[in-house]
């Protein structure tokens, strides 16, 4: 099969291959530069356009010549396998008239297929991955750079006029540490209650013969699939008197049905004999659950604990809805959000130094609030292995 394809005319000399690829890369670069036309003088633009068109014509001629030199059967097979090429040949002329250079992209498969495609793939993959790494890392570098920079400097990814004012200002803000403490409290209490309640409920649900099991499943699934919306929730919090308290940031998120289903799945995998033998020894249900089943499923439950904690730590929905006036209980993300949306003139009007450092101070806040997650990152990374189970849809 593939040897038949090889009979299609293909000049495989290495100078030809590199000429094609080099020309192609230059053509691509030129068409990217056309986007950046703004800063070019008209004469430079003219040269650019000319080079572009010359390459275009060269590609077009090369392909036409190649097609002409084939016999009928080869041509047919060629167009069948290199649909892009044929399309390029047809679309080139109208595109040249319309000044639309991106049709050159159609030429890419052919230019790369001249080389060993495993190597090409690896090179391309490395390029894509490097770009992605930059995309993920550069924003953080910018944050760090601005946090350590002096006022009113143009900062990109390294600090300019190294300065610790903004960082010391943030470290001296007691309300900020109050917010961190709030977040820690919410996360700790919330995770404890949530995982405890979910583990308890998952135990009877994991018993195949438990009466009314389906009813209870539906009861919990409804919680997952349907909700009362914002207004009833806000009114409920008002009437329970929980508005503007830490509890309003914990209680609405306690029932995490997805985690319940996960834990239930783990429990179902625990061998029944373990439980039977404990029962013969006269152990009660609570002993069985917390002394036998939970320790067996501990790694899985640890994963659930971890994800519950993350969702409490990052939640701003509850703070948006249920905190109206009491800013002392803002958790960390809400404190950041609130600070970022403040008008600097309101706070710092009597402190001109702070006003000039405003941008740097904002980034210092973000930097410090990323730190806890960054410190936990090695642990997070370890849990990601178990996290595959969480990301994957249950089978």
């Amino acid at each position: 099969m593939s040897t038949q394809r090889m009979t299609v005319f293909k000049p495989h000399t290495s100078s030809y291959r590199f000429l094609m690829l080099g020309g192609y890369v230059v053509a691509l670069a030129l068409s990217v530069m056309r986007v950046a036309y703004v800063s070019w003088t008209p004469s430079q633009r003219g040269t650019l356009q000319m080079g572009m068109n010359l390459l275009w014509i060269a590609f077009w001629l090369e392909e036409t010549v190649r097609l002409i030199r084939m016999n009928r059967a080869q041509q047919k097979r060629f167009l069948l396998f290199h649909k892009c090429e044929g399309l390029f040949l047809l679309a080139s002329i109208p595109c040249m008239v319309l000044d639309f250079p991106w049709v050159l992209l159609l030429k890419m498969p052919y230019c790369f297929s001249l080389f060993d495609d495993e190597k090409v793939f690896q090179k391309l993959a490395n390029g894509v991955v490097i770009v992605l790494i930059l995309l993920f890392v550069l924003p953080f570098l910018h944050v760090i750079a601005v946090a350590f920079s002096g006022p009113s400097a143009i900062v990109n990814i390294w600090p300019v006029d190294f300065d610790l004012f903004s960082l010391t200002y943030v470290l001296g803000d007691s309300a900020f540490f109050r917010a961190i403490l709030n977040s820690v409290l919410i996360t700790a209490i919330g995770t404890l209650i949530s995982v405890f309640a979910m583990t308890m409920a998952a135990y009877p649900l994991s018993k195949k013969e438990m009466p009314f099991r389906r009813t209870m499943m539906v009861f919990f699934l409804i919680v997952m699939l349907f909700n009362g919306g914002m207004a009833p929730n806000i009114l409920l919090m008002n009437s329970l008197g929980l508005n503007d308290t830490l509890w309003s940031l914990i209680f609405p998120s306690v029932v995490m049905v997805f985690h319940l289903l996960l834990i239930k799945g783990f429990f179902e995998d625990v061998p029944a004999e373990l439980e039977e033998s404990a029962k013969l020894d006269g152990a009660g249900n609570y002993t069985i659950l917390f002394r036998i089943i939970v320790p067996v499923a501990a790694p899985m439950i640890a994963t659930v604990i971890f994800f519950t904690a993350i969702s409490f730590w990052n939640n701003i929905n509850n703070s948006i809805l249920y905190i109206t006036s009491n800013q002392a209980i803002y958790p960390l993300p809400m404190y950041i959000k609130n600070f970022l949306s403040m008008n600097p003139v309101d706070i710092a009007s009597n402190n001109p130094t702070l006003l000039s450092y405003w941008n740097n101070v904002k980034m210092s806040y973000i930097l410090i609030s990323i730190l806890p997650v960054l410190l936990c990152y090695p642990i997070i990374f370890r849990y990601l292995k178990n996290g595959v189970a969480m990301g994957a849809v249950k089978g």
Partner: protein
Amino acid sequence: MRRSFTLKCACLAEQLRKYGNLFPFYVPAVLFALVFAYIPMLGLVMAFKENPNLLGAPTAIQGILDAKWVGLKHFETIFRNPQFLNAFSNTLIISFLKIAIIFPLPIALAIVMSEMRNRVLKRGLQISMYLPYFLSWAIIGGVFTAILNKNTGMVNNFADLLGFSRMEYVANNDTFRGLLVLTQAWKDLGWSTITYLAAITALDPGLEEAAKMDGASKWQQIRHVVLPGILPTVAVMFILRIGYIMDAGFEQVFVFYSPFVQQNGDILGMYTYRLIRQAALVPQYSLSTAIGLFNSAVALILVLAGNAISRKLFDRGIW
């Protein structure tokens, strides 16, 4: 008939005797579910009543009970309200954009990562790309507002260098949806890649080797071996993602929102929120509830349908 009924009864009695003492285990979860999920659902009656006068009533419940029934009046109001229609269409458009642009990315990335040989780069990408998923939208909002800032941001500095004029991205109606898609992709890309990486790892490596032996090019290996192999996973993830179309990301929009972007960036969540918290005179609880009910109902139908389809076709679902 009768016999089977008594049999069932006896069986149930037997089961109850055996497992009855497990019922207390439900108590904490059921308690929280009843109070914080089911009672608000009862509050949905507000959608069919006058806006409750909460200042005049001793308790919120009394206020809701006292309000007059108005039938479907609020629904008629919202469907004639241009602000609602705008928010509704924005919700759909933003969700569609997110699905169309973001959904294929982790699949492509997972394939690239599973095939690439450079261990160092692969490890570096894994370390850097999972981090954003564990950050709050508030922080991501801060980071992106900073790097896109018109006067001091990195992106504009770079554009300036290339000769473009500086541009506002966040408080700009034209770029707001793009910003939402970009930041969502930045946050979720690493995380969603895990699922597909797992699916690819589960494939039989012999298949690809065999294809290579037969002279399949890299692209052919990917197209004819890897893609069909992970297609069920992709299909299930896609169907389930469609189920969440009514949720365009409240926290995300809240973080980036400003009055400048109301036309293109207002979503249902923001609108219901504004009706309560930033209403001009009285909080519009009833209107807000009506929109919430509409939103929840559509979302419920979509999720149920998606799950049913996924169960039927691929025997997999969320439950």
